[in-house]
């Protein structure tokens, strides 16, 4: 298949003196959907933070489209086409919904059908109703939708979702899964963290299981499905 879009080698990271990640090695190939699994506190968000430049790795390297990015600043990494839906949404309190969708919009070649505000509103009609509301005037779920739409508005090469279905009503959750499947069909490369393991498996090409800052298992969804003992051990299900 294609050369890896993202490549992590020997990644070590942590907060202050405490180490959280101990030598992660993994690739994400273009067009692939990769699920990052693991129980709470195992370092999933930390991994993501390290990739997007929110946290400087203590050791190891991250290569995106052939260029090392582990020393880059967060904004530079984002402009290369890495978009994140962060844990806790982090909508901008003083931007309206509509502004969230136009302020960071970027076009990238190679995207067949770029996301426009109109398409994003079609995806989340609720946001269209709230277009003039400020980020802090939204309900929790509305903020979550906005965070996803905001990430999509940059038409990213690599989309990273950290618990993106958190706080969403079941119907909307369904909607998100459908949407991610659609994106996958369009060739969107995605890294997902979510607690709904079964739904994730249905979507992902490959799964990584993180246990105390180490990747203890990786494989296809079919393989994971077959090895239920992993679920109890590493996923707490």
């Amino acid at each position, binding site marked *: 298949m294609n050369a890896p879009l993202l490549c992590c080698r020997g990644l070590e990271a942590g907060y202050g003196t405490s180490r959280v990640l101990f030598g992660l090695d993994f690739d994400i190939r273009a067009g692939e959907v990769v699920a990052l699994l693991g129980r709470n506190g195992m370092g999933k968000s930390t991994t993501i933070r390290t990739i*997007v*430049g*929110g946290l400087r790795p203590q050791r190891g390297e991250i290569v995106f489209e052939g260029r090392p990015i582990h020393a880059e*600043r*967060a*904004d530079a990494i*984002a*402009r290369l086409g890495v*978009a*994140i839906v*962060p844990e806790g949404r*982090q909508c*901008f*309190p*003083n*931007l309206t919904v509509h*502004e969230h969708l*136009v*302020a*960071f919009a*970027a076009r990238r070649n190679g995207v067949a059908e770029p996301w426009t505000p109109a398409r994003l509103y079609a995806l989340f009609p609720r946001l269209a109703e709230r277009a003039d509301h*400020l980020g*802090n*005037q939204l309900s929790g779920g509305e903020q979550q939708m906005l965070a996803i739409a*905001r990430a999509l508005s*940059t038409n990213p090469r690599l989309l990273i979702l950290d618990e993106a279905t958190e706080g969403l009503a079941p119907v909307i959750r369904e909607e998100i899964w459908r949407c991610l499947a659609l994106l996958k069909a369009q060739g969107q490369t995605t890294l997902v963290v979510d607690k709904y393991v079964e739904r994730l498996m249905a979507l992902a090409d490959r799964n990584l299981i993180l246990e105390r800052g180490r990747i203890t298992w990786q494989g296809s969804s079919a393989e994971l499905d077959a090895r239920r003992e992993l679920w109890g051990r590493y996923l707490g299900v």
Partner: protein
Amino acid sequence: MDAIFVFEQLLNGLGYGLMLFLIAAGLTLVFGIMDTMNLAHGSLYMAGAYIAARVHEASGAFALAVLVAVGVTVAIAAVAEFLVIRRLYRRDHLVQVLATFGIILIADDAVKAIWGVAPLLASTPAALAGPVALLEGLPYPSYRLLLIGAGLTVALGLHLLVNKTRIGMLVRAGASNRQMAEHMGVRVGGVFAFVFALGAALAALAGALMAPISAVQIGMGEAILIPALVVIVIGGIGSVRGAFVAALLVGLVDTAGRAFLPPALRAVLPPAVAADLGPALAGIAMYVLMAAVLSLKPAGLFPARG
């Protein structure tokens, strides 16, 4: 007290309000929108006034003086931004107060060393020195019309910039959650530097334009800082519209207080009391207004952030 007089005083109030807005504009941008408390804004205002006064005196060309003042002040501000301010964006307001207070102390001594402590000559451009007749029996200083025009232009420009342009959105995003804005690809450092420079340009513009009708001297920056802050706070921090409305309100209240309050009190109170009370009340009108607004609306008239 005839109608024309009342009308004239209203006009004076609006004019003063627009002057206040002009002075507060740069601060609205840097403090209100970018959420950075820059007390040294007054120093930039002073720099603008001093440079404009000197250039005008030397060259006789007022427009040139204003341009040079804005240019040089922006250059000074860029250096200050690079050395100090950019390290402050992420810190809390009090720390910003502390650091920029430090800059004021340094700036005042620097101005003293360069130009001395005596107030500088700053004359009105000859073409605008006299009054024009707005109405029969209502002469109005033509230079003030220029200030009013400048105030309105800046207000409109600022409103469009902040609310209608992408850079406005990026500034607001960066100010409220810098980390997230960076994750969205915004060069927050660059955007902030640009906005700070713009704020400095507005400060310098205000200083240069105010120089001909006010004293150009050390401390002039601190003297306008408080009214400018009052305006921003009454309007609601982060709202250009709020600052604009508040500036007009303060201008009107202040002017009305000075023009109508003493005679009104004289009509109802014993002369001795009225003579003491009237001017005293007029003097603190701005602060009373602020305290009243904030006790009713704790986040100003147009709260922009929730």
